[in-house]
């Protein structure tokens, strides 16, 4: 059974008085412990799909089934409780946190909100989460703006896995990181996927990264699916014009999925 099934999703915006479709008739599925990549140029609707799937914005049409239940039917407290299973990591690891927060507070929030640990137990849970993402538990006392970008993205991943989700949406999660840090974060994500069987909706414009981590890929163009299939097969032999253009724009593709 799929973790997430999206069918005929549509979202229109008005730009200069004229409506335009940001997302138009998009359908896909993600299985347990699977990584589905959404690729496409800027403005192709990748991030809009991420926000629709997370219910940060509401679709105009279509259906989202999460863990076998209609996700769009939920609201209020029921929706907030369900959010524990569906998490997100943002592109800019600085903008994703309250500028006043400390690492401990960021990780305390999901544990407190979803009642996963009592007040007395939470510091121990926070330390364990930091260790799980390869950080020193002593970082808990630091302010978010005091740690490095790579450390921040690890904290973001720790926040996302705190509630033991079945799906994490990674919206350009490694795009803002420098190359060496990016490789480490990708290793961490793959390791978490193997151990906790988390599915990823991996949004990126970088086909090199997608080929390294994704099982399947969906290529978007102007809000519609241009083509989809096995990540390696699509990248080696793209059929659509936009797929060919994206592959041609990627400098070199030497890494394989480990």
């Amino acid at each position: 059974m799929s973790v997430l099934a999206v069918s005929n999703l549509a979202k229109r915006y008005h730009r200069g008085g004229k409506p335009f479709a940001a997302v138009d008739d998009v359908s896909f599925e993600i299985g347990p412990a699977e990584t589905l990549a959404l690729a496409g140029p800027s403005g192709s609707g990748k991030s809009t799909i991420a926000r629709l799937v997370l219910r940060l914005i509401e679709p105009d049409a279509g259906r989202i089934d999460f863990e076998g239940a209609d996700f769009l039917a939920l609201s209020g407290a029921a929706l907030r409780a369900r959010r524990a299973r569906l998490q997100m990591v943002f592109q800019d690891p600085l903008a994703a946190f309250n500028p006043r927060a400390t690492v401990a507070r960021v990780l305390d929030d999901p544990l407190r909100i979803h009642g996963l640990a009592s007040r007395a137990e939470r510091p121990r849970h926070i330390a364990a989460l930091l260790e799980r993402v390869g950080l020193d538990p002593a970082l808990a006392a630091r302010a978010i703006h005091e740690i490095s970008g790579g450390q921040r993205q690890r904290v973001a991943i720790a926040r996302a896995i705190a509630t033991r989700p079945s799906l994490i949406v990674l919206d350009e999660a490694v795009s803002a990181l420098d190359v060496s840090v990016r490789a480490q974060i990708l290793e961490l994500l793959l390791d978490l996927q193997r151990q906790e069987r988390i599915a990823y909706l991996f949004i990126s414009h970088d086909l090199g990264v997608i080929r390294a981590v994704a099982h399947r890929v969906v290529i978007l163009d102007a809000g519609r699916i241009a083509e989809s299939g096995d990540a390696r097969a699509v990248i080696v032999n793209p059929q659509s014009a936009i797929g060919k253009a994206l592959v041609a724009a990627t400098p070199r593709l030497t890494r394989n999925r480990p």
Partner: protein
Amino acid sequence: MSRLRRFFRTPEAIVGALILALLAAMALAAPLLFPGDPQAIAGPALLPPFQDWSLPLGTDRLGRDVLAELFHGARTSLAVGLAAAAAALLIGAVVGTLAGFAGGLVGEVLMRITDAFQTVPSFLLALAFVSVVGPSLGVVVTAIALGAWTGPARVARAEVLSIRERDYVAGARVVGMHPLEIAFREVLPNALPPVLALSSVIVAAAILTEAALSFLGLGDPNRVTWGGMIAEGRTVLRTAPFLSVVPGIALVLTVLGVYLAGEGVVESTAVRRSLS
């Protein structure tokens, strides 16, 4: 603390802080230096300043000690100014945050109420409120706050409108945080700096409004106020101008001090904001 050091880097901040410190010292020392009722008769009427050193600033029409009145008046001015500004900032920040964060119908209704309050001149509002409810310190504070909260509400709303689109607010929603907790714990604290920048203007305006109400005889009659002293001295302005001039100077210095210190705070937080 580095923030404090940044605050004291500008000369106007130092001058403002000195004036405010002096004023606070006056207010705190008033019951110690001048125990008993400052409105009691202390000597001959209309004694000019610097004649009798037991009454250094002389006496007014009824023979009351002007210096004692000045010290006790500082208490009223500071208390009313700070309390009214705190109330106005609190109401404004809460209304502005709710209006900006909720948006839609709730936001519209809250902002139309804000408009309604803003279109009535705040002094007229305070005047009407005090004349209906009756003069007492609490009523005067409420009356001034009622006319002053709209500015902070607008600034807070504008700030919240920009903050609510940030990733960390989306992050808080993804974590499953309750909307009210997002509004008041994630958004409001980050929207505060520009709102607090208004506080000096509001405190200064509140002190002036209180003085004006007292001047018109609508202040708390059981308390000495600078506005009341000026009004009292008005009748003998030609023969004893010092009775109006002394509290007038105190009022000007206080408002100036509040402005300058506020300017210093804005400067130091502006640096902080450009860094973050």
